């Protein structure tokens, strides 16, 4: 799937406006909206700030789906695609949600395109054992429903607060609060069930 196809389904964000000029004329309230405007104008420095602001969020969303070793590459691909299609953003104040969807699409594309994996060599398996507990917890979190696992990874792995998660992903505070509460409850039940074994 090309980058344009991945973000192509997001173009309906911009269909509500009569033309692109209306999009550009939209009031930029949030800092990210101003960043979007500057990136559209070709400001590479603005893109750097944009990357720095959203990279932890995108990393968390990608990590919820793909192996850790692939997450960094996919994060880079997400931002390259976002840069090329920045003009398709309908609401610059809500660019985080748009970016998050690109990350999810790229994660899906990774599984479609990946080759059959080989077994890890012995020495690498030993290194993984140091983070054995963390890997197990991450595996349990990845098995949770989509809404819960993303929110929990952003909170527990990336260390973001609930308000930051809501701001960066375009969710409401209430949604994030519910996801955190229910996701944590489910995680505790599964960890408890795993310890009893």
């Amino acid at each position: 799937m090309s980058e344009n196809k991945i973000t192509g389904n997001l173009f309906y964000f911009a269909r509500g406006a009569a033309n692109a000029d209306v999009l550009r004329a939209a009031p930029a309230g949030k800092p990210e909206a101003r960043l979007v405007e500057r990136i559209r104008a070709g400001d590479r420095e603005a893109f750097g700030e944009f990357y720095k602001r959203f990279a932890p969020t995108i990393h968390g969303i990608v990590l919820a789906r793909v192996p850790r070793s692939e997450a960094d590459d996919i994060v880079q691909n997400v931002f390259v695609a976002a840069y090329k299609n920045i003009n398709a953003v309908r609401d610059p104040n809500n660019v985080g949600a748009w970016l998050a969807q690109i990350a999810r699409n790229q994660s899906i594309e990774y599984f479609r395109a990946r080759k059959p994996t080989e077994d890890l060599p012995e020495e690498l398996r030993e290194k993984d054992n140091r983070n054995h507990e963390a890997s197990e917890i991450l595996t349990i979190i990845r098995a949770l429903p989509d809404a819960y696992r993303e929110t929990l990874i952003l909170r527990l792995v990336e260390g973001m607060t609930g308000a930051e998660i809501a701001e960066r992903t375009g969710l409401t505070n209430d949604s994030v609060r519910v996801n955190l509460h229910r996701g944590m409850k489910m995680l505790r039940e599964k960890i408890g069930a795993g310890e009893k074994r």
Partner: protein
Amino acid sequence: MNEDYLWDKTGGDPEIERLENALAAFRYRETAAPAVEAKVLPFKAKPARFQFFRFKYAAASLAFAALVFAVSLQFSSDETNVENESAQALKSEQIASIESGSGNRIESNVTNRNDSSGEKSGVSTIEKSNDLTAKTLKNRQRSSERQIVKIKTEISTNNRRSDAKLPTTKHADAPAKLTDEERFAYKQLMLALSVTGSKLQIVKDKAQSTDEKPIVKTAMKDGR
């Protein structure tokens, strides 16, 4: 579980802190932004005139259908006029031929009678022959009138039959039979009208179905 700590890290919760410490190994490590040499793609939003184009197409189809319908009406009215004129001409010819025929017969009889009577009959004979002639004339007039009425009824029944063959023509003076070419042209016009009507319906259905589609998915509003 401390909900406040889960939300904004205020207070403390040992269980959550333990999970945070364990999962910190997977946290994002700051890297440089990718080198984006690719150009920012221009986005062409679909203008509103797309919808206008659809309605324009529908209006053009409607106009064409109206034109075809008007032409077919004109054609059928011309047919009717021609048929009426031909029927009238036929009737008048028939009536004229019948009347002239009976008149000639009457005249010839009168002429024959007059010739055969001669001078021997005298005045009375002449008067008698005149009486006879008048009676004969009257009888023959009556018979010719009956014949005319009979012919008129025949013409009217023929016209009714021709009306039944032409489904759309409903005129008081029914037209005569159409030629093959005229009938073929009429059928072609009716076919064109029906095709245009079905296409108009398709355009109308498409316009209605497109208007009903939601523009923005509510899922994207929630970031999903």
